[in-house]
């Protein structure tokens, strides 16, 4: 591991843990966590699936549109390594998707069509309860180095902690309501993206970028801003105009800027 990468990893965890203390927005934090995974691990993108109280998985965050699509495809077709990882509560490693076409015929075809060659899924666990999975998608074949795999597991653990917000593990009801809150924040976030996409004639990724940009520049929680767009308290134009302005200024916007 290069010194530089090590520093970045430490910085990412410090940033994550300080945000955990500050009072945070879980969807925002987990979106950032998937981008951290994509940036710091030897993978190209990452996605987080979270189970609802009935054990049905939902997409909570993804670092790219392609990952979003492939994750959703797994949910739709009810097959794929992330689902198996959730069922088993154990990591599932697929170094070469082309060798697993018999196991997940539909998923492998879709994932390879989207440009992925390998997938590693690690469970998000809270003692005996499996909350969901973190899927790591690579454009190359090959197993993940042990370092990367344990880092991936560490990120999955941070995600679990973020989701339950330090609630006593014994308090299963509190955990359930926390997970439901995260899922319903996700609903509102998607609705807000739809409103912005329609109003500004953007695709969903741009719509999300505009929402996140506005939230960060105004020090707002992403889900609070999304809720206020859905409730018509913040005009979509205001967010879209801000986005256009920021895009036209010279200052480069760093990815993952916190």
């Amino acid at each position, binding site marked *: 591991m290069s010194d530089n990468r090590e520093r970045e990893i430490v910085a990412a965890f410090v940033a994550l843990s300080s945000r955990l203390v500050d009072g945070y927005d879980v969807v925002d934090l987990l979106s950032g966590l998937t981008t951290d995974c994509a940036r710091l691990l030897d993978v190209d993108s990452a996605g987080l699936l979270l189970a609802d109280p009935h054990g049905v998985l939902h997409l909570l965050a993804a670092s790219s549109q392609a990952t979003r699509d492939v994750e959703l495809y797994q949910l739709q077709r009810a097959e794929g390594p992330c689902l198996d990882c959730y069922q088993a509560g154990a990591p599932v490693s697929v170094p070469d998707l082309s060798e697993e076409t018999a196991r997940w015929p539909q998923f492998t075809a879709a994932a390879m069509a989207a440009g992925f060659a390998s997938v590693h899924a690690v469970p998000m666990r809270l003692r005996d309860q499996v909350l969901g999975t973190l899927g790591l998608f690579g454009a190359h074949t090959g197993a993940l180095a042990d370092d990367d795999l344990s880092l991936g597991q560490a990120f999955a653990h941070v995600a679990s902690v973020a989701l339950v917000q330090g609630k006593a593990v014994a308090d299963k009801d509190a955990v359930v309501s926390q997970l439901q809150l995260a899922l319903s924040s996700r609903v509102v976030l998607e609705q807000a993206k*739809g*409103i912005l*996409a329609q109003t500004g004639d953007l695709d969903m990724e741009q719509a999300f970028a505009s929402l996140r940009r506005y939230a960060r520049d105004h020090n707002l929680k992403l889900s609070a801003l999304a809720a206020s767009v859905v409730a018509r308290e913040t005009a979509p134009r205001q967010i879209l105009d801000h986005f256009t302005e920021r895009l036209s200024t010279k200052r480069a916007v760093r990815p993952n800027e916190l």
Partner: protein
Amino acid sequence: MDSGARLRSDLQAAMAGGGRGLAAANQLCHACVDLLDVDGAAISLMHEGATRGTFGSSGDLSRRLDEFQFTLGEGPCLDAVAKGEPILVADLAAIKEQRWPAFTGALLGVGVRAVFALPVAIGAVPVGALDLFRHQPGSLHGEQLGGSLHAAELAALPLLDLMGADLDWSAAGDGESDGDGDGAWSELASLERVEVYQATGMIMAQLGVGPAEALVRLRAHAFAHDQTASEVAWAVVERRLSFDDAANTEGSS
């Protein structure tokens, strides 16, 4: 299957017997009484723009009790919707229980000692509540609470039906009432998809309506064109279908 899972599947099965809207709401209320150790159940709708009131109950008394809340302008089901969280009252006669003086009096007057109001959400918006009444004081134990929450999720379907009351259900086909107890649940799951949420947002912007109403419109379109909610949602997200156009063309068909 553990008993919690059995309870959920029994509740779903109760919804599978056919019927929509009011009939389905009544069925679900009866199932609550049969399965959840309560003596009465009612479902109310109180979304802006929709007719507020009780739609569906296990019997006359439950319906009238539920309606009292609208008359009196207070009660746990109104609070459950306003706060978006369950309001669980194990003992209405408890001295500290002073939230709804008039409504509590009415309930105690007919021998109801416990009331549990669970919000029913559509597209993350609480639009109504499932009210459960019990003669004996006492909390819902874990499994009953889980079952109640599940029943409240299922109640979203009849409420969606009622909000889209102009729909012609006879034309919608019986495909989903396949009798295996899975229909209601898979229909709910079909509405809980990312593309459906995104399309809901787009329809909100197209029509200037709220999320629940946008979802009602999306679902109505799916029924009218014999498509799944997801198919309609993709068509909206990919800009192949726009509801501001559809509103005009559909009006003439």
